[in-house]
């Protein structure tokens, strides 16, 4: 058995392994070097790999993401860290207009094998400028792949799969997961970034989720089981392109779906998944699709308000129960 490790350590191991395996790989971002990363993911890497490969950047998201795109085009395998997804808005032009388009616009002559890591999500009282879940926005963009490791295994191995991808990959690490502790699956050496995974099988309702909401869904499923409701927990893992086949299999098995997404509900990833279920599995539904999302407000700073705004096991349980036992719709 391997020793328990945190999600943070798994992510660090992933970086260390990537830097060791391929001399073209380097990491850059704000505070990734001397400070050891805003969430301490990159702690010790500067000492181990040196300033050539662990590069601190100025507060200039557009510039260093652009530099990463250039480096990728020139043959390197850059990993760019953006401190939090809110700050990535400053680099949106580079991501949307360059990284996502160049392969298309060059007729396939230029590929951009860039990986951008970002912290996402709420739960640590970092208020409305550091807490949002905007990965659903990025999942709107053709030309990039969006992944969201929600387990220790995925934190450890998704990075390698992302680096192997010839196109830009955005990897979202939920800040709430960094302290999660667990063991790596013995013998596991790689994971894909194409398929969703059933994390807990069940026959009564599918809880469809990813990233930081995965542990909440697993907790909800455990409680639901105590009252005789067998909830299946589906981890999307890759948010773009969505693994429709696995999603629909789950809906067809359970006939009911609750989508748990920390993004806001309107025009969201949860809305997209709902629509796909309507398009592909309407006749398998025994109840309307339900969603548990974040309240449509800028994330509040006070702890009790932040908690109230976010999806919680209690809300997931209440929603699943309503789908199965009847009653008014809930959000």
């Amino acid at each position, binding site marked *: 058995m391997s020793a328990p490790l945190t999600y943070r350590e798994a992510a660090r191991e992933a970086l260390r392994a990537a830097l060791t395996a391929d001399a073209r790989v380097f990491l850059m971002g704000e505070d990734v070097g001397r400070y050891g990363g805003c969430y301490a993911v990159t702690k010790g890497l500067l000492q181990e790999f040196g300033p050539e490969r662990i590069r601190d950047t100025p507060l200039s998201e557009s510039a260093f993401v652009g530099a990463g795109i250039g480096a990728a085009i020139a043959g390197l395998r850059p990993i760019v860290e953006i401190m939090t997804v809110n700050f990535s808005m400053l680099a949106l032009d580079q991501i949307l207009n360059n990284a996502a388009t160049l392969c298309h616009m060059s007729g396939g002559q230029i590929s951009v094998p860039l990986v951008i890591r970002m912290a996402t999500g709420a739960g640590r009282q970092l208020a409305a400028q550091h807490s949002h879940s905007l990965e659903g926005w990025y999942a709107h963009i053709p030309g990039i792949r969006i992944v969201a490791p929600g387990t220790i295994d995925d934190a450890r191995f998704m990075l390698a799969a992302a680096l192997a991808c010839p196109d830009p990959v955005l990897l979202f690490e939920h800040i709430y997961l960094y302290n999660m502790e667990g063991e790596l699956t013995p013998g596991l050496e790689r994971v894909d970034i194409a398929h969703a995974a059933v994390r807990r099988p069940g*026959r009564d309702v599918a809880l469809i989720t990813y990233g930081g909401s995965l542990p909440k869904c697993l907790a909800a499923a455990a409680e639901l089981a105590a009252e005789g409701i067998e909830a299946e927990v589906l981890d999307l893992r890759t948010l773009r392109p969505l693994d429709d086949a696995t999603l629909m299999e789950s809906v067809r098995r359970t*006939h009911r779906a609750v989508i748990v997404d920390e993004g806001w509900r309107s025009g969201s990833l949860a809305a997209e998944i709902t629509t796909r279920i309507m398009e592909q599995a*309407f*006749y*398998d*539904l*025994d*109840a309307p699709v339900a969603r548990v999302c974040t309240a449509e407000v800028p994330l509040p700073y006070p702890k009790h308000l932040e908690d109230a705004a976010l999806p919680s096991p209690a809300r997931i349980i209440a929603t699943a129960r309503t789908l199965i*036992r*009847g*009653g008014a719709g809930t959000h």
Partner: protein
Amino acid sequence: MEIEFRLPSLGADMERATLTTWLKKPGEAVHRGEAIAVVETEKGLIDIECFDEGIVSALIVEPGTKIAVGTVLARLTAAGTGVPPTSVPRAAAPATAAAAAAPAVRVPPPPAAPAAAGPAGEAAARLRISPAARRRAQELGLTDAALGRLAAGGMGGIVHIEDIERLAAGGAAAAPAADARDAMRVVIGNAMARAKREIPHYYLGHTIDFAAARSFLQRHNAGVPVAERLLEGILIAKAVALAAARIAGFNGYFRDGRFERAPEVNLGMAIAVRGGGLVAPALLAADRKDLRTLMHEFSELVSRVRSGHMRSGEFTAATITVTSLGEDGVEAIYPIINPPQVAIVGSGCVVERPGVCEGSVAVRPQLTLTLAADHRVTDGRAGARFVCTIAELLAAPEKLR
């Protein structure tokens, strides 16, 4: 120009009506949207309107006559063509030629006809049923009327899959217990009628030597307590499940015009219900369970069916079915496929017959297996492979564990 005025359909379920009163006489002008006659249907008296403009030239049907939808009730002469009314085959035929030439006669518009089945009425009556329940009801051939009764007792007035399954199992929540048997008969009837109507069945039969299977069972059962004894039916079920997993095209559903292969074999077991009727709940993943487990689960299924405590999942789950009348001494059964499944295996009773074994005639136990399968999915050749695979498995029962 002659226009035929026919009895319109005033609702999807209306087939006929009785003509009560004519509101027009030959020679009278009819305006678009005007009522021309009153008919009586199950819904009551209904004014029927005419959507053509013209002069009544002939009333063909007598009041009091029961007529089918589409029957010509009257003939009109289109306005302006000037053909005189023909004589009418009814006692009162007072039409005069003058009337035809008198389009100036003003006919007061009749009182507005009450809407018989307007859009508002349809919306109010629209069944609240989940899409999955709707599909399952269609598979079972349930009518909207039966579903409407269910909705009244369903959760929040909405019909869910579970309600359909309960109805199919003869225990409709909303239906009084006395109706349950009838309801089950209706469900069986509808499902089988649909199967016969839609599924191009082909049938294969194969008589096999059952000696190996029988002696295997005797050996096994001699060494275990009564509660753990295996039935012939379980051996056969296991063989069918394994064959269905191995030979493609028999395990799954035919839906939306194509075959969907099922990932595991959920073997439907036809079980007679006391007092008449039949259900076919499934042994889940029967291809992957050992004989002991299957026997245990089957006994539980039977006792649940007999006591009426069935779980809804067991009914939707079956991907192929086995039916057996073995104990009743029938040698072969020619079953009907349970839609949307695509195959059903029948197993007769084991009979002792003279048979050839190692070159000489001896008394041998024999079993006749039959297969009904869906020609939209497989042909007889595949069916034969499937049946022969079952036979081979039963010839080497020790491998069935």
